[in-house]
């Protein structure tokens, strides 16, 4: 489930939740893509495991949901916006800014 060539990558939240999602889905995020780039020789690139200390599991879960939602609808037109619980939206906003999604 890990390594530079694996099809899946693991995202870890501050409170230890792990989310395993396909690599191409995760790489929609510019920040994660740069972390995972094997040529950068970051440890994330070598192990395929990104520890995102900034975000609690709840926020990271929503980010992963968005990444999958984005992948699922990449060929559709007029896609409605993903539903975001209002109490999460500010934290998610900062996460989105950080992760460049």
């Amino acid at each position, binding site marked *: 489930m890990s390594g530079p060539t694996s099809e899946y990558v693991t995202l870890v939240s501050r409170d230890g939740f792990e989310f395993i999602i396909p690599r191409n889905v995760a790489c929609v995020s510019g920040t994660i893509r740069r972390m995972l780039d094997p040529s950068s020789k970051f440890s994330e690139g070598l192990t395929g495991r990104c520890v995102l200390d900034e975000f609690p599991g709840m926020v990271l879960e929503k980010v992963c949901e968005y990444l999958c939602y*984005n992948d699922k609808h990449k060929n559709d037109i007029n896609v409605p916006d993903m539903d975001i619980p209002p109490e999460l939206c*500010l934290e998610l906003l900062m996460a989105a800014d950080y992760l460049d999604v």
Partner: protein
Amino acid sequence: MIDRFQERERGERRERRGKSVSGEAAEAAEQGEIQTDKTNPVAGHSALTDYLASNNISAQQIRTDWDRRQAEALRQATEQEPSVTAEQSQSPPVPTSPEDAVKKRKRQQAIARIKNSKEFARRKARGGYDDDSDDDLAIEIHEEQNRRKPGQFANCEICDKRFTVTPYSKTGPDGGLLCNICSKKQKDDKKKPPAKRRATGIGRRQNQSNLLDGLTPHGTQSLLETCIKKVADYIHDIEDFGDLPPSLLLRLGQILSRRRAVTPRTLDLFLRPQYTSIDLFDCAKLDTNDYHKILASMPRLTRVNLRFTTPMKDQVFHYMMERDMNIKDLHLDGANLVTDDCWRQLFTKLGHRFLSLKLWNLDSAFDNETAKVMCLQCPDLQRLKLKFLHKLDNDMLAEISTLKSLQHLSLRFMRETEIETEPVLQIVASVGSQLRSLSLEEFEFVDDRLLQHLHEHCRLLTKLRLTLNSTFTDKGLAALFTGWSNQALTYVDLHSLRDVDMTNPDGPEEPIGLASDGFIALMEHSGSKVQHLNIASCRHVSYKAFEQVFAENKLYPKLNYLDISFSTVVDDYLIQCILRCCPALQRLVVFACFKIRDVHIPRGLALIGTVGATIKIDGITQTETI
């Protein structure tokens, strides 16, 4: 901030629970009271009765209500039985009493009203109901409207138990409400039907609106944009933004301004003492005190960018001067109540610090004299933009040439003001060599001599906007771009450079405005770097010129915005040529290019302004109709 949000939600929940608890208490009281009455008739009040009395709940009242309800239920049960047998004997059911007839008529009127309502039309469109089920839908809405509201009591449809209605109460099989326990049971057997797709045609306006914002119709929006929109939706529930970076604050400011949601309350969210800039694009709902608040709570401000500032008055400027604020960039739109005297004082006191000054829409103040004071007192100005200042005209133009540090100049006068060529030439001659951007809009009768001066003096220009002019000739424009020692431009806006003689639609022999030669010369000169190009309404550019500019061997690698509206010669073939030569194109504006019928565009391109064309996006076909 989010904690508060959650707290509030929790509070609401608690409240709701509180209500249902008191409901239970009332029920318990009914039973309790009955018991106490039986067992202890003389002992007076129980502790519970006292407690209830102190909360203004009378046990006696509850008791009488209960008795009355019981009696009524009994009466109804006995009444119904004969009517059922009556219905069985006569096949068409007749209303049994005049009261029923009234009720029935009222109900039918209500349903007819619902059928005319917007809600009905909306649901019908969304749900894809056919005509036969109109009645069903109307009845459904009618029942929904008559349903008990949260906080009221109702009898459960299945178990007949009395309970408090909450927002979570489920609907039973016959349209009534269910109690908590039955709701839970019901939930498991009934799964939600999948959401129905929106019927085509409904979203057209929204799609066009999104296209104009540059959003392409396929794929999802970025999470960032989605979140910003959501934050804007809930702006009135947010107490503090926390530590949002300035870039996001700016974007939020833009979206809130667009929704006209900048109010004295939301303003507080943007006031950060440690930040040095404030950008609000719609201040129409703020009052004079709010401007004071901005200046007082952000003492380190160096950049003030406020638009639609109708209530801004002299006092605000006086405050700035008293505090000797370190403002370097002042951008104000519509600060109409500030007097000329005050503007002059401001320039005299703080002008030496100003690096950029942008003013829009002043009609009752700011005359030529004030402009002269400005040019004298703000020697370091690098950026100057004056748009729609009603009292300015030719007299102040020459003064601009005294601003020796000027790098960016943008001017637009009122339509009625006829600007002469000479003072403009003077400006270009004296500051042209250091100008990086120049925008002269609606200088309708300024002639080719300006183009010659630009050719001669400008070296550093990256942005050039010359629009709404009907005097420049094609020859003059071609000469400007041929052998120009200025670097390649990145931003070019030459829209509406054309002849406007209605009696001669093809224009004179010698073309006026940007025509074929000028366009070819422009793309030769700037094609390698140009990112933004607007040649809308330059209607004398020929088919051949387009073909030559977008020929197979040409490449415009940076071009991401192209506006060719009202170039009526453009057809499907030319669009394909354009797309081939401009790989980075994100927005292509083609209003009134009616020959575009059937095009294949790449992903990520917003094609704006087509009418009834078939647009194919990498395998996804969508036909668009008017």
